[in-house]
């Protein structure tokens, strides 16, 4: 599926990164984005960074994901 999450690179060695977003940290690789550096915001899909992304876009996406999670939980509660 197309979903990709913006995340900040907090550690980077060769192409092995640790990324941070929405209170979580996980491993990702920058093999497909060799220009990525520590502190960059990147779009992560299936464990790989595929594009750089700016602050505003990242923030909007994180907000959207939170809203979706809230919506899902609420709607699940309402439908019992």
């Amino acid at each position, binding site marked *: 599926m197309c*979903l990709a999450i913006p995340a900040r690179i907090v550690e980077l060695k060769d192409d092995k990164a640790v990324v941070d977003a929405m209170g979580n940290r996980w*491993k990702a690789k920058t*093999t497909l984005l060799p220009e990525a550096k520590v502190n960059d915001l990147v779009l992560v899909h*299936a*464990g*790989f960074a595929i594009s750089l*992304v700016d602050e505003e876009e990242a923030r909007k996406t994180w907000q959207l994901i939170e809203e979706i999670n809230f919506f899902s939980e609420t709607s699940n509660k309402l439908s019992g």
Partner: protein
Amino acid sequence: MLERIEKAEKEIKSACERLGRRINIMEVCGTHTVSIFRDGIKSILPDNLKLTSGPGCPVCVTDQWYIDCVVELAGRDDCIIATYGDMVRVPGHSGSLETRPGRVKVIFSSEDALELARKNPDKTVVFVAVGFETTTPATAVAVREADSEGIDNFCILSGHKLVVPAMDAVLSNKNHRIDAFLCPGHVAVIIGYGAFGKIVRQYKTPCVVAGFEAVQILEGLAVICEQLAAGQSELESVYKAVVTRQGNVTAQKTIAECFEAADGYWRGLGKIAKSSQKLKEQYRRFDAFDRFGLKEEHVEELRGCRCGEVISGLIEPPACRLFAKECTPRTPVGPCMVSAEGACAAWYKYENKKK
């Protein structure tokens, strides 16, 4: 943000009034389908504008034969199946991966599959490599690593497909009623929005790339409607943040290093030339089809399942007599209901609840 939504809504309304006739826009990507439903976008569109789900859900377009192969391999003692989560419940003729829990591992990255192979040298790890161009580079990197490290107990069952040939196939069907495409945002990150240019040039059909939030979708639709009202057919992108005309060249080169385009069989669309990714000769030893001697054959679809017609945009989910009766998210018959991004699952979840 609200102003942008209102502006896009106005533009859509005005263009659709000028057009007068019915307009069909196909959203190619499954993630768009879900966003459209979840955000209630259809309810604010004019009556003469219809959105149709297309073949953009990789799980939904995976043909029955592939699924049966995966389930068969999962029955072998010497195999571990590594798969993305959305494939686990897709039913084949003899059950789904869910029915073989011990040998199936859900993973989030091709790298996880490779790690499984390193940790289980006495088993063969079969990676269920499904997805469009957004996901294909990840598989290519894993294959390359397996090759350079000599991880011979790793192989992939490639179900990777290409989006543009499928769009071409939809328009080649003389029964199609598609006026324009809303194109997938993250596929475009990889292939570049320029890749949709050949659809525009060949069919004079507008192609607009958009991201996945409501504003993006509405702005993309507004651009399409304006084009149609002005009698234009252009290539555009509103997903300026991450999509460029040329795309991610490193990712494209990575795909090209490991894969070549081959004919592929798509549920609902049949055989499409040069639409699937096959491992190149030098990486063929990682090809699970070859390794296990699996020969391609067109297998009869599950009885009554009309997923193929849904994917081609020929019918809407409720037209299938199994929809919401035998076929529900808890008891899915076909992939469009199993996959969270399938048109049927999305329709069931959001549309059915209204009743």
